[in-house]
């Protein structure tokens, strides 16, 4: 481990908002003049809320049991680990038999698998994808790079610790992890959910400000609302 090199200057500049995202006045095809504020128009600004547990533990247990048995994964291959998800979707490893399936859109998914390293550019998309997912939702960090940077530990463009930016429920070590290890991960996640320990959604809501601060510290061109679901 090398010590942090303080001598290398860091330019702490932010990137100006892109032209098309700035508020402006436009003329509609029928001749009307309207003011549009793209960032406000497209998104709801409400911050996430902590989802309380059911009043009766038995009800909460039932919920958790149900949640654990339908893990719907967002089919977003953020990094190289995505290649080992294909075999899971096909008969040889057949993850579907464990109640796991892939969905094309965040709206239908409740499990985000960060498949390996995240470049800053993808992190931005991953955050949006995560926020668009319906709670309770879970995050699995797949591969060593999500734990401590992995082999891209000295790269200028990849984050090192996923848990700084998203609430991670489970990590699977490997580079890359085999499909079997992923299946193990799903089983473990199910156990966590049933035990009521997979509370990433609420953790994200509780620590929303600090997550945002961390995200914004690496995403220089923050041109989206703070929360958009």
């Amino acid at each position: 481990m090398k010590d942090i090199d303080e001598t290398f200057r860091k330019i702490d500049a932010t990137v100006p908002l892109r032209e098309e995202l700035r508020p402006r006045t436009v003329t509609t095809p029928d001749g009307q003049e309207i003011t549009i504020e793209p960032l406000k128009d497209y998104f709801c600004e409400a911050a996430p809320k902590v989802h309380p547990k059911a009043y009766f533990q038995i009800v909460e247990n039932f919920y958790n049991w149900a949640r654990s048995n339908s893990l719907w994964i967002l089919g977003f291959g953020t990094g190289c680990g995505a290649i080992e998800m294909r075999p899971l979707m096909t008969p040889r490893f057949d993850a579907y038999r464990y109640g796991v399936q892939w969905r094309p859109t965040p709206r239908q998914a409740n499990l985000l698998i960060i498949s390996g390293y995240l470049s800053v550019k993808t992190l931005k998309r991953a955050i949006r994808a995560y926020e668009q997912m319906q709670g309770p939702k879970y995050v699995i960090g797949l591969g060593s790079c999500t734990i401590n940077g992995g082999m891209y530990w000295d790269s200028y463009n990849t984050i090192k610790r996923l848990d700084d930016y998203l609430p991670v429920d489970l990590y699977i070590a490997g580079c890359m992890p085999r499909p079997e290890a992923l299946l193990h991960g799903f089983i473990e996640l199910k156990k966590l959910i049933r035990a009521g320990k997979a509370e990433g959604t609420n953790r994200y809501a509780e620590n929303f400000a600090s997550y945002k601060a961390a995200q914004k510290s690496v995403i220089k061109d923050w041109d989206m609302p703070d929360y958009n679901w």
Partner: protein
Amino acid sequence: MSLREVLTPFSVWKRVLDAPVSIADPFSREASEHYRGFHKNDMETCIGCGTCEAICQNGAIDMVPVEGQNTEKGDSGLRPMIDYGRCCWCALCVDICMTGSLTMSNEYTWVDSDPDAFRFIPGLNEPWKDKQAGYKRENGRVLSGTTRSPMGELHANERIDNFNEICVGYTREEAILEADRCVECGLCVATCPAHMSIPDYIAAVRDQDYDRGLQLLYETNPFSEVCGRICTHKCETSCAAVHEGDAIAIRWLKRHIVDNVPLERRVELIGAPKPATGKSVAIIGAGPGGLTAAYDLAREGVKVTVYEALPKPGGMMRYGIPEYRLPYDALDRDIAVIEAMGVTIKCATVVGVDVQMEDLRQSHDAVILAIGLQMGRGTRIPGSEGAGVERAVDLLRRITAGDPTVPVPETAVVIGGGNVAFDIARSMARLQKIKYGRVGLTLTALEDRAHFLADKEELVEGDEEGVLILDSRGPQEVMRDPSGQVTGLRTWAVTSIFDAEGRFAPAYDESDEQIHQGALVIEAIGQMADTSLLGDALTEKLEWNRGRIKIDSEMRTSEPWLFAAGDAVKGPDVINAVADGHRAARTVMEAIAQGEVVQ
């Protein structure tokens, strides 16, 4: 679009009859025999050299102390800890591992919700301990060289009739090849008594930066020319490369550096000593210990006078080690550098005769005693008194001095298995060759060949030169004819040389008796210090420890003005004497700086 094109795809419906290809139990599926899974480490074989850490491109490996693993010579006591938040399972660490202790299992599942849990010391409670399968390097250690580049040597025929140096030294190409093999783990540094910065100067050879190399050498050892030739190189036993292949030729590389820097350049590189402090120190004995202390003190601006009883400085390096191992001009160059630092060496000045201890004490701020082990021990077996029996050190000294009365009979017997025994045996063999055209020399030693105290090279070269080496022979009697002339040595076979506790305690077999012919018997079993120069009063005043002057770890004797170093107090080789010399110089500096020395 034909009907055929519409219908053909449906023919694959036949697949519904196929057996499903799903793996029924994917959780217990074994990975392949050579799978690169999580690491395993054999804690006992591992030496903590950190080469795995050096090669890891992910910075995934930390060397950490582990309970139960002690730091000792050749083993740092550290063990690799792997951060699986970094590892990429490339197995370069396994490939480079110097001992082969680090391997991989074929275990591949590690799931945890705590991101800090993925740090792991292989070999310490590894869950996959019993798994045999997993990646092991197939071709041995291929990422760093395993064979030493051979040292050019004179052939036995070329060297036996002269005292020319045997080793010719590395060429640049050979040296670079050899230096390239070093993995810079630094395990050797702790073993070197002088703690020379071995990996650094080897790096200098690799970079062909002999100036830097020389400066590094002189930081810890002013006798690089000497040590580069005749050091006992214990460092090479701690070399990480020794576990699978040859140790790095540290000694030859050291010599290579000095061989490549001319004398004047050396003085230039070392630079001028610090300005004079006005202090002065007397050193008795111009051997490696005394001269090292002299060098260090002179560098610090102390006026140093070295008193040497013999006509030339160097001590055992000159009068003990034969010229074919250490040419005199090599030694002279080392001493010249020391003298260039302003050290005065008064040769042929015997303390106790020409100058008295008390005078030295009066005229200097401190006195360092570095008198060495100049007196040879005798076996005192029957017949060993009288002419025809010589002590090795005396004889070597006379040969060096060019004494024409050195006896060179056609046949001779040497008793002893250390380097001194070989030095005299091989010197005598040369003299015999010169005088009679053939070698008639027998060397008997108590030890068996595996336990000879002498370097392995000595045995090999002795054999090559025609010295008859008889191991496991205990001397019983020097045989003499009625006229008193020595005729040979009677020995018994040695059945064992160590007792159960590993102490030296030879046991004999009387039935296996031999008589070795020889007109001269040379005893080379041990040496002792001649402390008579101290005088009775001082001898009485000093404290002693089992026959040697008692010193503390900082080389102080019980007298505040007197310090001691070298073989006489510690022993038994040049590099230890150098280390002592440094220590003594440091202590003396501290002492005179603080004005501790009370006259």
